[in-house]
């Protein structure tokens, strides 16, 4: 026990004396959360739009007011000709234009059929889609308001209802992703690099020749990073809840369980990486290739897995981050219980067992 304490103390000294490590460990999570929360967001708020009103009747003015008062849009300019429309888009002043046809109200009442044109700047695809969706649904609402009696209702009407994330907030997407990324980075990469460092500097050999048991060495290496990444988990959760309004609908206990299981998966992956790397540099490169790319691109963090080609979808299944992000979303946003995340937890546990087994076999071959 004395040996383990001393080992953990030594490990913390390594960490606390390395300013770059400290930056990665404590500044990076905060920066990433703030960055994703404020900068990289698809949330619509005060989007600038242009109105080209060829009708100027009660309905077109009413609808314009409705759009502007929704809180999502600000009318940047009033246009008069189609030519002006081209110009404002080219200047990038607006993201969306609403075009009312001539005799808007008249057509609506008499022909019972009228078209409003929504023009969006699709060079920014994500926001174009979001803006047109928002505008369409506001227009539909307005239509319901003016048709007081349900007489001339269209035969088909679609209503879109967004479950769990009614306001389509980006924070719901990025918090699980950032959490996965940070925990991978710290628990996995830092463990891998610090173990590889001992190999590189030759201290690993001295330690293995000493009476320290392999278990003590591994636990001593892993505990500091587990503690630090758990602190980071708390930092990220507090920031997301209090600054960005991320809900935690499920139980805290389950949330921490999910995080802890993922942490163990990440650290055991780190140990496995270090078992195959003789230097810190190799450990770092391997970590980046097999961690970051899958964690960011193949976990459903940024791109939906269902839209990927089958081969990639299969690859996604072996990314621990994929299962973690699924579980964390379930618990935080949907508020599901243990029964709904058992599959994810089981998958992660299976991965832990595989990583640890492979590491032990490999360590026996190389160190001994």
């Amino acid at each position, binding site marked *: 026990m004395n040996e383990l304490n*001393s*080992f953990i103390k*030594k490990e913390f000294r390594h960490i606390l*004396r390395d300013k770059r490590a400290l930056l990665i460990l404590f500044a990076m999570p905060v920066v990433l959360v703030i960055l994703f929360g404020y900068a990289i967001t698809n949330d619509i708020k005060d989007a600038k739009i242009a109105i080209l009103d060829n009708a100027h009747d009660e309905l077109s003015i009413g609808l314009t007011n409705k759009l502007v008062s929704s809180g999502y849009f600000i009318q940047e300019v009033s246009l008069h000709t189609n030519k002006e429309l081209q110009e404002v888009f080219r200047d990038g002043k607006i993201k969306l234009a609403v075009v009312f046809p001539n005799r808007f109200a008249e057509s609506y009442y008499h022909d019972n059929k009228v078209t409003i044109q929504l023009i969006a700047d699709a060079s920014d695809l994500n926001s174009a889609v979001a803006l047109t969706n928002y505008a369409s649904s506001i227009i539909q609402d307005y239509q319901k308001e003016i048709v007081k009696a349900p007489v001339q209702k269209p035969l088909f009407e679609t209503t879109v209802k967004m479950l769990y994330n009614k306001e389509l907030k980006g924070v719901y997407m990025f918090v699980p992703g950032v959490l996965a990324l940070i925990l991978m980075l710290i628990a996995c990469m830092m463990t891998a690099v610090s173990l590889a460092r001992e190999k590189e500097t030759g*201290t690993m050999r*001295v330690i293995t020749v*000493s*009476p320290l048991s392999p278990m003590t060495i591994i636990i001593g290496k892993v505990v500091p990073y587990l503690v630090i990444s758990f602190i980071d988990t708390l930092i990220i959760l507090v920031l997301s809840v209090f600054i960005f309004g991320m809900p935690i609908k499920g139980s805290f206990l389950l949330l921490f369980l999910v995080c802890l299981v993922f942490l163990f998966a990440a650290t055991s992956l780190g140990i496995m990486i270090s078992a195959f790397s003789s230097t810190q540099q190799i450990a770092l490169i391997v970590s980046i290739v097999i961690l970051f790319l899958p964690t960011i691109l193949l976990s459903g963090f940024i791109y939906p897995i269902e839209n990927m080609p089958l081969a990639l979808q299969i690859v996604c299944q072996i990314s621990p981050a994929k299962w973690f992000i699924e579980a964390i979303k379930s618990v935080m946003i949907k508020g599901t219980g243990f029964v709904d995340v058992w599959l994810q937890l089981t998958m992660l546990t299976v991965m832990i067992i595989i990583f640890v087994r492979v590491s032990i076999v490999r360590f026996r071959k190389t160190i001994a």
Partner: protein
Amino acid sequence: MEITIVTDNLTKTFGAFTAVDHISFEVQKGEIFGFLGANGAGKTTAIRILCGLLHPTSGKAEVAGFDVFKHTEKIKKNIGYMSQKFSLYEDLTIRENISFYSTVYGLSDYQIKEKTEQLLTRLQLHSEADKLVHSLPLGWKQKLAFSLALIHDPKIVFLDEPTGGVDPITRRQFWDLIYETADEGTTVFVTTHYMDEAEYCDRISIMVDGKIEALDTPDILKSQFKAATMDEVFYKLARGTSTK
């Protein structure tokens, strides 16, 4: 004389490759035993077995009186180890390094305090005790690493190319330390590529392709191979196998 290391037909194979091929030798207490051989001759594998890291395929070996099959844990407590890389933590202070390696070898807090004082006095490092090892000159690092390998008063200390990359004067000083240690009754098992250092050893074994091809005092080996220096002896042995 007390025997501290004994091997009898010790063999280790990896698949079809025989790394250590029926080696038998004895090392006495307080002896400086030079373990020579070209790279890939099987030295490292033999040392790993003797340090309790690797189980031999066949044969027998006892280190500090403990069997390398059954009592590797006890062997580990009774040996010290130092490698070419010195194996110090550069971002820890001298005092922290001493304290870490002491606990690794199971010393009590009281012993650690005592040992630290003793060691700092002997190496005259009191004023540097709280500086990072990183800032020490190479020669001091080497001495510190050697002292740490001896921190738990082991019966045998294994030195794996301990003078690599160190200047001749520092090397000479280091050998003075080795003599001191051997005089105090610690067996020194040393590998080196420097043939002038080989001359400092009490006895030398030269390994070629997994076998011990020569084993005796430097003087006897020189006359046996009709050579003026150990360098020549080594060269004759190595050439003998390459033309074989």
